[in-house]
């Protein structure tokens, strides 16, 4: 009887200590998906900017709203992107893409940067 009680108490302690981890895991999964979308978006904007060539690259900005429906659950997120092209003398240009979004009232962002040499 005593052994059973000790085992039950130990199991209870372990379960109670693990319980707070579940919401954190769930939040982590959501953040991971948002971050993945932001990185995709940033890389695509970077590729588009680089495809314009050294002389044709220009700064731009915009936003995309993404609604994901998985198992009838809709999740809507707005991603704001900003592409900044800056001269870096003597013969370089930097392209910095920043993607920002808000998640549970937290402002998050991802950045991708590339340097281009003058041809």
């Amino acid at each position: 009887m005593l052994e059973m009680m000790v085992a039950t108490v130990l199991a209870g302690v372990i379960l109670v200590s693990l319980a707070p981890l579940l919401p954190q895991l769930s939040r982590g999964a959501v953040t991971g998906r948002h971050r993945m979308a932001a990185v995709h978006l940033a890389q695509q904007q970077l590729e588009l900017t680089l495809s314009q060539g050294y002389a044709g690259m220009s700064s731009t900005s915009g936003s995309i709203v993404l609604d994901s429906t998985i198992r009838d659950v809709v999740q809507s997120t707005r991603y704001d992107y900003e592409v900044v092209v800056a001269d870096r003398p003597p013969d370089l240009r930097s392209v910095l893409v920043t993607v920002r979004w808000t998640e549970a009232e937290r402002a998050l962002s991802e950045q991708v940067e590339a340097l281009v040499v003058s041809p």
Partner: protein
Amino acid sequence: MSRRRGLTLPEMLVACALASLVLTGLATLFVQSVRYHRALEVSLELQQSNLAAMALLSRDLSEGNPASLRTEPGGLVMGSPRDLVGNLQADSQGRLMWRKYICYYLAPINGVNCLLRKEQALPVPLDTAPILPDTLDVLFFRTSATPYSVLARNLEQLEISGSNPVSIRLVSSRTVANELFRIESRSDVVAKN
């Protein structure tokens, strides 16, 4: 001489019941993790494809002119100042030259709805945005032999509305193992030229 006592039937039954509970829990966890992995994989693939199409469409529209844009259900045709290689060029007075037409439309490729893009050079570069002739509609590009590029697979809807800003809506969806995955992206683009 020692005698070792074995397990009684009730003890065995309790042990079996506990083991089956634990195994059922583990099996459920395994099935859920496989489903989660599949959901993540499919939704990321849809998302990546949808965002790539949205990025290119947004850039083309932002470089275009509302006067040189024709929208139809499931497609659009527009003038573009880039040549077929992708370069922008100005004339001797610094005016941007319009070099080609671009068409986006939805069409099935091997049974999968895709967003396709075709380009056609203007006969002569123009210094103002080209007014699209009536014959130059989505059907013209659909039936022309011009090579196309596939921008996105599993794209179900393409909607363009408004003149400036132009509103774009792209919907991708895919059903895997009786589960529907759907990604919708929306963006407003201001045509600058």
